[in-house]
């Protein structure tokens, strides 16, 4: 399916639940509300014509000026040879979202990474632990207002002059 055809098809499938980006912006992506996040991903992954069965990338971005964290899922369909970017925004304080690991098992590690670096906790995630930073690390480094701790287990985090 070409990307225009895919956009039209998804628009028809999901109706007014989606908000589409300005086509001038480059990539075509749709933004959904965080309550519909899991259901829409489920629909897009299982729908016969979309069949976006492959999660290429799943990441998050911090927007302190909007007080929101944006989650971005890059999906791809090997059978139909098309891809789609799905986004959602959640609040920074209560950073909670539904897990995608039931739909795409690859999301388990991606979600652990987002949890580790941005502090988003995912409901019903099978194994939500830190993946990159040590287990007893304080804070989530990719938040824009992150302040590094002074010492980690006795190692100073800044080089003494």
């Amino acid at each position: 399916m070409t990307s225009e055809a895919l956009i039209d098809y998804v628009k028809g499938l999901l109706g007014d639940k989606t908000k589409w980006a300005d086509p001038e912006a480059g990539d075509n992506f749709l933004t959904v509300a965080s309550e519909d996040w899991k259901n829409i991903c489920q629909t897009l992954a299982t729908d016969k014509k979309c069949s976006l069965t492959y999660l290429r990338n799943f990441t998050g971005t911090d927007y302190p000026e909007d007080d929101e964290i944006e989650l971005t899922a890059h999906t791809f369909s090997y059978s139909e040879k098309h891809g789609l970017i799905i986004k959602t925004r959640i609040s920074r304080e209560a950073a909670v979202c539904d897990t995608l690991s039931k739909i795409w098992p690859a999301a388990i590690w991606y979600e652990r990474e987002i949890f580790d670096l941005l502090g988003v906790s995912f409901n019903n995630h099978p194994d939500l632990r830190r993946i990159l930073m040590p287990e007893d690390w304080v804070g989530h480094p990719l938040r824009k207002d992150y302040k590094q701790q002074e010492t980690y287990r006795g190692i100073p985090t800044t080089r003494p002059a």
Partner: protein
Amino acid sequence: MDAMVEQGPEGSFVLGKVDDLLNLARKNSLWYMLFGTACCAIELMQTGGPRSDADRFGMVFRATPRQSDTLILAGTITYKMASRIRLLYEQMAEPKYVIAMGSCANTGGLFQESYAVVNGGDLFLPVDVYIPGCPPRSESLIEGLMLIQQKIEKEPWLKKAWTNTKNPKDPQIEGLL
């Protein structure tokens, strides 16, 4: 050698001679641990290869910390790895030496501002020799190993063994283990 005779109690001359022999043995059989944390490890492997043969000096690699004399910090050290490296260091048998190889192991280098990288191996290990470079060539690493040899030559080993084996500069970081 002269300095040692002056320092020591009576009979230190004999001890010094024996020390010379023992240090000759120790410096010519400096086994290093086969351990690399990042890209400098490629140069570490290269040092054992044909063009710059570390085996000429009697330096062979050992896979286990128990049998190695030198720990070469080859590459970027993250905080998560730091506790493992400290554990490996504690598992090594005395006497042991540490070489910080490359900018990252010296000061954090390119990744100094990163949230995950330790700003230098000397923040949690007693480093004996720093080798600059990104990565250092194998010649530099050999020179670093030869500096360790020079350090060994000057050590009063017998007296050290009888008195205190703890290095006073050793930062004792209890939380790491």
